[in-house]
């Protein structure tokens, strides 16, 4: 009984953390920016006018489309469903008005790219953050 209960708690915790993962928006520590707002992030990722926060040129990168992180980021920060996002980019891209951010497969690859090419901004699960990067925003 006790064991079952414990398993249940563990399972619930696991389940809820996998559903409600918190995202961290990260850059290389050398980037001259300490914070970014969700709105600035949205303009940057959607390639809109005046998209560089405080004039700092940043190159946004994405996680693989259809991945759990990407869906979460699109929903919480960009405010778009996967279908809406793909229509948005089909209009922009095929009319020559910008490309969707390049996609990387998973947190480790994003961290690697962010630190290898300063000026790159990405997002990962907050659990994956280490000392090699600077967190600009936490997205609950």
């Amino acid at each position: 009984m006790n064991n079952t209960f414990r398993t249940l708690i563990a399972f619930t915790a696991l389940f809820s953390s996998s559903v409600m993962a918190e995202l961290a928006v990260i850059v290389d520590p050398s980037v001259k920016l300490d914070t970014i707002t969700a709105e600035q992030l949205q303009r940057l990722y959607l390639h809109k006018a005046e998209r560089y926060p405080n004039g700092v040129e940043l190159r946004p990168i994405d996680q693989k489309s259809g991945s759990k992180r990407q869906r979460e980021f699109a929903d919480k920060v960009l405010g778009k469903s996967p279908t809406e996002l793909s229509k948005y980019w089909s209009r922009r891209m095929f009319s020559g008005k910008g490309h969707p951010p390049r996609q990387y497969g998973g947190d480790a690859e994003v961290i690697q790219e962010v630190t290898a090419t300063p000026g790159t901004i990405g997002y990962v699960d907050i659990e994956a953050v280490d000392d090699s990067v600077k967190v600009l925003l936490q997205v609950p």
Partner: protein
Amino acid sequence: MNKRLYMAAAAVLLLSRAGSLFAIDNIEFNGFLTVGATRSDSSIDSQNGNITDDIGFDQDSRVGIQVSADINSRMSITAQLLGTNREDDNFDASFDWGYVSYAVSEDFDVRGGKIKFPTFLVSDYIEVGYAYPWIRPPSEVYTSNPITAISGVDVLFRARLGVTDLLVQPYFGTANDQDALVPQEVLPALGLAPGTVKYENFDAKNMAGINIALSGDIGALRAGYLQTEVSASGFGVKDDDVSFWSVGANLDWNNIIAYSEYFQRDIDGQANAFFPNQKGWYATLGYRIDRFLPHITVAQLLDDNSNNDPGVALEQDSVTLGLRYELGTGAALKFEAQRVEPKSGTRGLLMEPTNDINIYSIAVDVIF
């Protein structure tokens, strides 16, 4: 046999895993494809001969590949290859447009080359069926300007205005060797039988225009103006003035989708004898229910005879009922039933005058 199956499965898996077709360093390939079938209930064909009472695939089917590469942090090149069956029975592929873009600043791009310019709301991605609700944008408006790309330059200037984004896009250039569908009424003078589908070359020079768009989270407003001088040796047309203006809006708010546009076209001189002054509009209303988007479009093409122009009038009304269904992300299935009524005794956009015809269409749009 088994081995081939595995290889096919591996290839599909590989393709489905890649976000775009390839991503080799700085070069990117992206594509779009539409396969569409049409059929009408009348022996009278559409004026381009592509919609008939037999099932046909020529009107809407096409494939496009876009190639883009960053030369450096400010410069990039982009080109689009398009293949269609539209103008004759042979599949024809060519570069629809291609240009070099230079980012002067974050909000200021200059582009040079062959540029697809926006006469209307969806003009600059008109070949990408996935990007809009209809199988084909309302022809009463969208066929009024046969020129879709210029050789020249344009400037994209963007600014943030409150909760909206402003785009100001002036352009200048020429468009040589454009194809204009010869009106049925002109065929006898060229010694051709009625019902012939014939395209004639024409050139447009000193084309200057501007596109202004204001877009926000719930939609966009746009206005555009262009003027040019057209010449067509086949018609004895030399440097006749053409001007064009258009306004439009679209809405995407709480599952309500709406589009509406209006245009006016003025043509002077000898060219006006073949191509009349026209005005036209359409309005589309749709309501998104999960993966379904049922929509209705009313459209009208009218002769604009305010200057007593000699051009042969072409008038028609149409009502289109459509349904778009999302096949996952990046693909859509569409159905449409359209009733076209040529007006004022004219043939409208058909081969010859008639009371009305119904056109049924089905299409699948994919981006990859």
